[in-house]
């Protein structure tokens, strides 16, 4: 019996909901069993024991964990992720301010990653075992092995020394009169408002962190693309097209590239987790003010609600990224589509 594609997608979505529930339970419990009293940390060492107890009660920390969780889950479903102890504002407000910055950085990094890595993989495969291939392979290995913060700091130093007016921290110059826009994405809001000076300035700020963040992925994807191209090059269908005189550029850029993009896309989905992890570090270095740096501060401050929310959002990113990868791959590969429909 053939299963409707919609059913397949809905099943997949249902699984993701389960994953999110499991993730939320895990982080909820973890955040509460690690040592350190959030109420004490919020109030500071000067507060009396009574004050701390009062806050604990107010926060509901004295109730059993399952009750706390159910209460949290119920509120979360209604869009209330609780108050941040540190910023004293609703966590959702904090997230709305910080998430777009991170998403913008990560998306630009991913685009940059593919724009550089796929052509590099194709070229190194084509010039296999020639000098270009060796240089490309060396560079991609460098990208994989060197930690991204090292790239980040090195680039900051180099930019500060040799490109004196190139921005090395923040998302935007302070001098620009910019009130923010509806989406929070500077590139989109700037374009919508017709403020191309803002867009250009934001791009300049994005360049270094995006580059540092994408280095590891570039190395990885270049290598996967290269080996995938080489493997597919030996297939009979390439020989068939060659024997009918179809030009090599068509064979490479049309036939081989599409077939060979499946492996790097799959890897990309998996790599997304480490991409978000690296974003935490990169955001700190570039004073990005995204949700990763927000997360880091809240972890150090034991800001319970904020930590839980940050982990959930990171999990959501990972799931959405993989959902997109799955859809794209099933568009590329008809065999997968039919297997799924079965």
């Amino acid at each position, binding site marked *: *019996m053939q299963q409707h594609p919609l059913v397949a997608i809905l099943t997949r979505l249902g699984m993701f909901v389960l994953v999110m529930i499991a993730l939320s339970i895990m982080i909820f419990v973890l955040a509460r069993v690690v040592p350190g009293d959030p109420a004490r940390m919020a109030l500071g060492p000067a507060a009396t024991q009574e004050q701390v107890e009062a806050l604990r009660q107010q926060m509901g920390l004295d109730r059993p964990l399952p009750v706390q969780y159910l209460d949290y889950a119920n509120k979360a479903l209604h869009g209330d992720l609780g108050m941040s102890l540190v910023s004293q504002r609703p966590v959702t407000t904090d997230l709305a301010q910080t998430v777009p910055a991170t998403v913008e950085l990560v998306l630009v990094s991913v685009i940059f990653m593919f724009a550089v890595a796929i052509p590099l993989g194709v070229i190194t495969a084509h010039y296999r075992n020639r000098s270009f291939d060796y240089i490309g392979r060396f560079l991609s290995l460098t990208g994989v092995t060197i930690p991204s913060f090292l790239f980040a700091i090195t680039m900051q130093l180099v930019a500060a020394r040799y490109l004196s007016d190139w921005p090395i921290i923040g998302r935007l110059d302070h001098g620009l009169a910019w009130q923010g826009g509806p989406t929070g994405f500077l590139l989109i809001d700037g374009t919508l408002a017709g403020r191309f000076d803002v867009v250009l300035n934001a791009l300049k700020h994005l360049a270094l962190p995006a580059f540092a963040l994408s280095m590891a992925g570039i190395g990885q994807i270049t290598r996967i693309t290269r080996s995938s191209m080489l493997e597919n090059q030996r*297939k*009979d*269908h390439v*020989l*068939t*097209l*060659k*024997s*009918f*005189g*179809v*030009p090599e550029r*068509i064979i490479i850029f*049309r*036939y081989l590239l*599409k*077939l060979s993009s*499946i492996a790097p896309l799959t890897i990309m989905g998996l790599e997304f987790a480490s991409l978000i992890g690296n974003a935490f570090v990169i955001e700190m270095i570039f004073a990005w003010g995204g949700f990763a740096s927000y997360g880091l501060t809240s972890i150090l401050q034991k800001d319970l609600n904020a930590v839980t929310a940050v982990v959930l959002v990171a999990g959501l990113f990972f799931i959405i990224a993989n959902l997109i990868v799955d859809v794209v791959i099933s568009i*590329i*590969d*008809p*065999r997968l589509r*039919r297997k799924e429909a*079965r």
Partner: protein
Amino acid sequence: MAEPLLNVDNLSVSFVTYGRSRQVLRNVSFSVAAGERVALIGETGSGKSVTAKAIIGTLPKNANISAGTIGFAGRDVLSMPRAEREALKGTAFSLIMQDPLSSFNPVFKIGTHLDDVMRFADKRNGISTSKAERRTRIAAVLRRVQLADGERVMNAYPSELSGGMRQRVLIGLALLHQPKLLIADEPGTALDVTTQDEILNLINQLVKEENMALLMITHNLGVVRKVADRVVVMHHGDIIETGPCAEILSNPSKDYTKALLEAVPPLYGPRVIDLPRSECAPIVTIKGLNKIYGKRPGYHAIRDVDLTLREGEIFGLAGESGSGKTSVARIIMELSRPTSGTIDIDAPAPGRGRRLTQIVYQNPGTSLNPKRTVKQTLSLPLTSIGMDADAREARMRELLDLVRLPQSYLAKYPHELSGGQKQRVAIARALAAEPKILILDEPTAALDVSVQKTVIELLMQLRQDLGLTYLMISHDLSLMRNFCSRIAVMLRGEIVEEGVTPEVFADPKHPYTRALIAAIPVVTDVEERLKPIVTEEERMRFLVKTTA
């Protein structure tokens, strides 16, 4: 005599691997006249495919044409400028590849392949065409290969068509620009016999109608008789002999050709071997076997199969791909569970780690782990029955003697062995823990005929010496005719015919059995005349549809 269409003269080709040069073609000379059908035959490594690649111009980069010329319509293609040579591809000569599945890129529609080939060939000829125009032309070509519903075929992905249909599209691809010469590299070999038969008929018909010349590359002498006027026999990069087809097949002058012909198992005639029936007690009894894969409603792979294997016999289970024969074998091996039905094996229970049944797979190239030496491969089953190092060593030497391989082969890796040697190792591995029943899943399908002959002889000897019972699974009925004492034919999960081999072949009852036997390419005209007759109506009813 007029200038031949294709004239290969003194061609020598060598391959350079890791700095070492290896000669693969030595002074090869032959010609194909316009409208003539020539078969290039030879076994693995004889250089027949390299010859085809040299003509078309798709030799790998490490190949080096050290001498000779390839003349096409009076002009040497090897000394042509690159662009001019490219222009010949698909228009002057074109190639039909062997494996119709791997010859298409799986993530592109069939129509994309056809359109690109046509578009660039048109471009080289200086014609510019619109996409719609090309689509009409392609549909017309597809009709020529009996794919009437061109739209559906063009919009399908390769995995959505049957093997026969894909092979037809491959032929269509070759016909797009009315080439003068068609080069066919073992077409249909990867398909079922009945489909292969249809494909050969189609090629024959097209060559005649379009007045093309055909260069057929094959290892199957039966195919040669069907499609060739003249035969060129190759062996280790040399041409052994050349002559008219009938003459070579009936009266070869060279020993190699004679040996090649003798290795082909006969279907009818005095050379056929009748195996005695076993009168022993049944060793395997299968009753009411059903297997359904998947759920609601699932795929019914085996339907109510009853089978009895007698001790010491060779039982043949024949059928085409998807008929359920391998599923039966897997169930006997206890590798999968039946949905319903019983299997009784009447033999004393074997000891720890031992099994009553073992299997020899079709392709020894993939059934042996390439990273393990023969010794490592053989020691695994021996360790599992609890042998210590010394006993294992002794048993391994014994096993190699059994399969007639020298002791020194213990240290070799699979890639150092030939196909036949690898299959011998696979047989030794199957025999290691002394099973009573050996399942042979197309054990010689991946081997050359001459090698097949020696492996079959070895299996016969082993059965006698060790008192084994064989269950042979195959679609090669001419081989089964000479190797099995009883035979059953499976079609879509059911056994449609069962009996003593000579009787089944003398008077096949079921139309499907008749169709299977009729489709086997045979070497002599006498055998061809003895084949059963199948009506078109029966064909339609029982064979897989390969047209659209």
